[in-house]
């Protein structure tokens, strides 16, 4: 695939200021999204998936974060080094983001109309009437019934699912080329979740935008994304197309994670587990960060941090022993 990706994160290392100095939140992260594609970033807490996503639009607190290395290439430029004014033009207009908690993502003292119209007036310079008309169209696009009346509601009158739809409407207002969705359905009921995911799918087709979907839910990734990146303890551990990842996971963590998900369609005696727990970001572990929990760890795993190895056909995994053994141990 010689096509240029739309956005490409290269060797990103982000550090947070902790009690005892700077700590790596993510280290050496690489991933990219093509035009019109959906990339899923999957991981548990502490994996760094949200940190990576927030870094794309530099949404971290300025005083407590530093970008120790790496670049985020978009439109021929590095977003990390972009001056603030230029970055503000990218935010909302070309790259948009929606967040997890619909309760706190909308300003409770502004009407829906005000909040949707804000990006329209800012980026497209529309008049109030024109912006309002477009805002109503956007609400209809996200399947909110009775849009011309609801647009004057305040957020507290809407349910969680509807607020998320409004968030999506705000995000796609300027037809962005990339939408970053950070756990957009985690706080929603499963029936509402499927509605929202269906909506995102339709919008993706209609607008032709790419989506980076961050989630901890493997099922959501399997149904929604084309490619997926698995993160653990601040590093990318595996990257592949969705069918390849679920058919033949290469990294022991990915495999463990897939097996630990309770099966909806089968009865089991006990769930498969990954022993131990996720390391604290400030903990320094020699070698592979997953090795303390890995049933297949060998000597070399405990000594040198492994590199991301190409297993062919766009499938990468950070586990040299596995790949050397042909993916089956």
């Amino acid at each position, binding site marked *: 695939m010689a096509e240029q990706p739309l956005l490409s994160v290269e060797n990103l290392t982000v550090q947070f200021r902790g*009690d005892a100095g700077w700590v790596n939140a993510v280290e050496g992260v690489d991933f990219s999204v093509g035009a019109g594609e959906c990339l899923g970033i999957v991981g548990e807490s502490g994996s760094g998936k949200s940190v990576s996503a927030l870094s794309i639009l530099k949404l971290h607190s300025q*005083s407590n974060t530093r970008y120790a290395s790496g670049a985020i290439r978009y439109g021929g430029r590095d977003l990390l080094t972009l001056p603030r004014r230029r970055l503000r033009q990218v935010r909302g207009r070309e790259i948009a983001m929606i967040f997890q908690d619909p309760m706190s993502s909308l300003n409770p003292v502004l009407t829906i109309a005000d909040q949707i119209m804000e990006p329209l007036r800012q980026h497209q310079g529309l008049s109030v009437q024109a912006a309002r008309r477009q805002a109503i169209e956007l609400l209809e696009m996200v399947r909110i019934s009775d849009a011309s009346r609801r647009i004057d509601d305040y957020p507290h009158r809407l349910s969680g699912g509807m607020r998320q739809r409004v968030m999506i409407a705000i995000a796609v207002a300027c037809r962005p080329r990339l939408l970053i969705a950070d756990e957009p359905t985690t706080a929603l009921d499963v029936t509402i979740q499927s509605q929202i995911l269906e909506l995102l799918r339709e919008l993706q087709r209609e607008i032709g935008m790419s989506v980076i979907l961050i989630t901890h839910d493997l099922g959501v990734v399997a149904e929604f994304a084309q490619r997926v990146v698995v993160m653990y303890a601040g590093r990318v551990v595996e990257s592949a197309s969705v069918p390849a990842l679920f058919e033949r996971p290469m990294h022991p963590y990915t495999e463990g994670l897939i097996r630990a998900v309770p099966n909806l369609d089968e009865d089991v005696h*006990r769930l498969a*587990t990954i*022993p*131990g*727990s996720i*390391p*604290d970001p400030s*903990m320094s572990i020699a070698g592979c960060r997953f090795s*303390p*929990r890995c049933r297949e760890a060998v000597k070399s795993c405990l000594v040198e941090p492994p590199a991301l190895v190409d297993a062919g056909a766009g499938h990468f995994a950070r586990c040299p022993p596995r790949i050397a053994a042909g993916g089956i141990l």
Partner: protein
Amino acid sequence: MTEVVLATASTQVLAERRRFRVVRKLAAHRSFKIGLVLVTILLLCAIIGPMLTGIDPTAMSIRSRFKPPSARFPFGSDQYGRDILTRVLYGGRLSLSIGLSVALISGVFGALIGVTAGYFRALDPYVMRLMDALMAFPAILLAIGVGAALGAQASSIVVALAVAYVPRTARIVRASVLVIREMEYLQAARVSGAGDLHIIVKHVLPNCLGPLIVQLTFIFAYAILAEAALSFLGIGPPPPAPSWGNIIAEGRDYSVEAWWVMLFPGLAVSLAALGMNLLGDGLRDVLDPRLKIET
């Protein structure tokens, strides 16, 4: 079966023990350190200072009236020839103990009232309306009223100021209690059969302490300032016993010729209040980082 459970446990890594996390954070906080130094110096001066000077604060000497600061009278002397430095040191004892007493009394009563209002919701409206009524009075006026009723002595000032500040502490405690009562650990205690007293003593009060202590440091500072103001108005501890406030009051008439009489106790009051405020800021920032004001 148990082997699986235990095997899981043995590979669990407990977070490396970070002892005394709070103390280390405080040690790194600049405001806190400055405040702590100031308050410690003042406390030391107040406690042992008087013993070191060996001079009687009430000893008058007509020949030494209105002497400016010199080697013999480092802070100068007043209209009766009394050494201001010694008076400030003795005055510190009285003023600081008034501040401490006010803080502690308003803390204890505020906690009782706040817990009652926050925990027993049926009583809440009545208790808080009473507190609101108290708060409606400016503290100084209230103190004047109580002081006039009880007579002008240190103890009546303490009572007056404590009454004036109780609504503040009660509010803080009530706000904490309202949050804590929704916490699941409280419900877990209920499920285990714990009664209200057990829950209040073991769960509610310990978790209210943080914001309360921060508030008490500010009240300490207010009380010292208020005592100075009340003494200035003539409702403070009566002479000849020195307090910072009444030294300032006595020096009022001579503020132009003998500026040192008002200056040094005034500085003491300011430094005490400043020190306590900085201490309180540091405690607040460390205990509840969400409230931190970025410096």
